[in-house]
């Protein structure tokens, strides 16, 4: 374990210790009463009582700015110190919440969500790293389109992270003689994000909705026709890009392709299945699953972390080597997102309070654009929950009550549709919009592909390609 890993582990342990201190001391009920909860924040903000310090959004803005500018303007400093920067900024916000607001619960909630997030991402990353998919097939625009479509569908079965990790290498190898940055960008758009909008396994926000009471098949039943539109349009745009890419042809002459697809690492497929089953092991879903409350971790996360360790220890070493397996991509996500999860607490509370205050003015279009534009830069899971909370609030329902959520789903489909698709779709807008985006970028750079910077990604690809598509989705379904 290196120095940075020790910093992260110590930080997580300290936060857990401090925020659980009251609980372990047997003062949990008192702590609840004394603490400003998220819901209370919202209520008080609605009455004009300013408990939320708007200035505390600044650390989050600084972290976002540094993630965007670091690799471009001060790469040496950023590469060496981003763990300290992320943990440092997260610590500043955590100290403010603990010492000034005496708000343990916002931190505990964020920590629990972070651990769930990293357990799912980490376990999928490690388990899929032990699987080798060999595709010896000549890439043509049509083959690439079919491959991306397959990836988009697979994202709903093994999650956007699992599908991204499993398919990015074969996709690069298939295209190695003609690969350009746009290949990877479209892969991020379709496989790492938009594709996973059909099931709660697909993307973390939908998973959180499922835990709160949205039925498992509600998403696919109510969103499939919206999902198809951006998938088709983006695939058509990709086809045009790829068709006009005339750089094909091996540098070492024409290569013979066998058309073979070979799969190795079946043991890790079993581990992937365990991870997917573990997704459902939550007291909110299955009543006999024990809750480990007040610990910010559950049975599900313990299983996922265990599978992560076992699948790494027992993986075929030659496959790990051929996959050039390295923990660095998941470490990068772990460090940056611990800072982001904590630093974004004030930002999300501001959003929640504003959403409650202006609940009457909120329509499906506002939910769509607000959830989407924030999901591109904040983590889409808590953003989804806050807007779902606001939508429920419009009907006088409580997001913490499963029966209320189920009732809401039956009476107000359009708001949940808007929030669900926006939270998933807009994750493709930036490298930080969704966990797998960063991992795919990192893997591609290790393969020698020069990836666009944070800003170039937005200006050259997200804005001209995704925004028109998202406007069309809004105009047809949510206007």
């Amino acid at each position, binding site marked *: 374990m*290196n120095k940075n890993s020790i910093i992260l582990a110590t930080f997580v342990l300290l936060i857990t210790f401090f925020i659980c201190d009251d609980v372990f001391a047997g003062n949990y009920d008192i702590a609840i009463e004394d603490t400003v909860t998220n819901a209370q924040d919202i209520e008080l903000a609605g009455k004009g009582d300013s408990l939320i310090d708007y200035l505390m959004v600044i650390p989050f803005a600084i972290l976002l700015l540094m993630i965007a500018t670091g690799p471009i303007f001060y790469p*040496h400093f950023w*590469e*060496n110190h981003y763990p300290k920067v992320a943990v440092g900024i997260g610590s500043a916000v955590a100290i403010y919440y603990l010492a000034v607001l005496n708000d343990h619960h916002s931190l505990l909630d964020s920590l629990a969500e972070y651990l769930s997030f990293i357990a799912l991402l980490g376990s999928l990353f490690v388990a899929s790293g032990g699987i*080798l998919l*060999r595709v010896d097939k000549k890439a043509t625009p049509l083959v690439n389109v079919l491959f991306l479509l397959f990836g988009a569908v697979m994202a709903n079965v093994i999650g956007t992270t699992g599908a991204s990790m499993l398919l990015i*290498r074969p996709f*690069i*190898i298939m295209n*190695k003689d003609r*690969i350009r940055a746009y290949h990877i960008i479209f892969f991020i758009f379709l496989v790492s994000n938009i594709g996973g909008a059909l099931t709660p396994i697909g993307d973390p926000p939908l998973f959180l909705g499922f835990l709160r009471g949205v039925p498992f098949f509600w998403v696919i039943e109510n969103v499939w026709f919206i999902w198809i539109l951006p998938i088709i349009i983006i695939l058509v745009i990709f086809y045009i890009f790829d068709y006009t890419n005339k750089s094909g042809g091996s*540098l*070492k*002459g024409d290569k013979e392709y066998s058309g073979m697809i070979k799969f190795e690492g079946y043991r890790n497929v079993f581990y992937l299945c365990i991870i997917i089953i573990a997704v459902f092991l939550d007291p909110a879903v299955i009543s006999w699953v024990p809750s480990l409350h007040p610990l910010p971790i559950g049975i599900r996360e313990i299983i996922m972390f265990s599978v992560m360790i076992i699948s790494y220890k027992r993986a075929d*070493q030659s496959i*790990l*080597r*051929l*996959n*050039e*397996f*390295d*923990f*660095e991509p998941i470490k990068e996500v772990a460090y940056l997102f611990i800072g982001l999860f904590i630093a974004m607490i004030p930002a999300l509370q501001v959003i929640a309070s504003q959403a409650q205050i202006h609940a009457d003015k909120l329509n499906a279009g506002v939910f769509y654009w607000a959830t989407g534009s924030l999901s591109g830069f904040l983590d889409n899971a808590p953003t989804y929950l806050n807007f779902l909370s606001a939508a429920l609030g419009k009907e006088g329902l409580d997001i913490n009550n499963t029966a209320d959520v189920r009732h809401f789903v039956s009476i107000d489909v359009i708001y949940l549709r808007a929030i669900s698709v926006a939270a998933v779709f807009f994750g493709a807008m930036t490298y930080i919009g969704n966990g797998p985006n960063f991992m795919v970028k*990192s893997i591609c*750079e*290790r*393969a*020698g*592909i*020069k990836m666009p910077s944070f800003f170039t990604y937005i200006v050259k690809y997200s804005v001209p390609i995704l925004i028109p598509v998202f406007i069309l989705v809004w105009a047809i379904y949510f206007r």
Partner: protein
Amino acid sequence: MYPINVVLNKKLNGLHYYNRIILPFKAHILKVIVSSNIITDFSPKSKKIFIREKEEFTSVYFLDYKDLNDALSKFDAIKMVVVEKGKDVFDFNNHIKISLYLEPGHKVKIEECDQDIILLE
């Protein structure tokens, strides 16, 4: 000093010390990938890499790292596209893709990249 093909066939190893690797051959280095750093600037002004050729070996210093062991896992390699000194650098058939794995005892295992190892020129 050996030709690269001899080094690969005889499985001769290199050496590593902190941010320096020592390779038992001379070559035109076209591209180096270490972690997610893609290095193509090998001029003396490069802030990422410094190459020094001696009669018996080639030293490569990775200036971004204090110790390469901290940057690379046991499955992670430094990857290079190289051309044997004296051969036509413009002929892609002369381009050799190699992986360098850091091993205990300061050894560097030098292998030609497997077809499943992705290294794009």
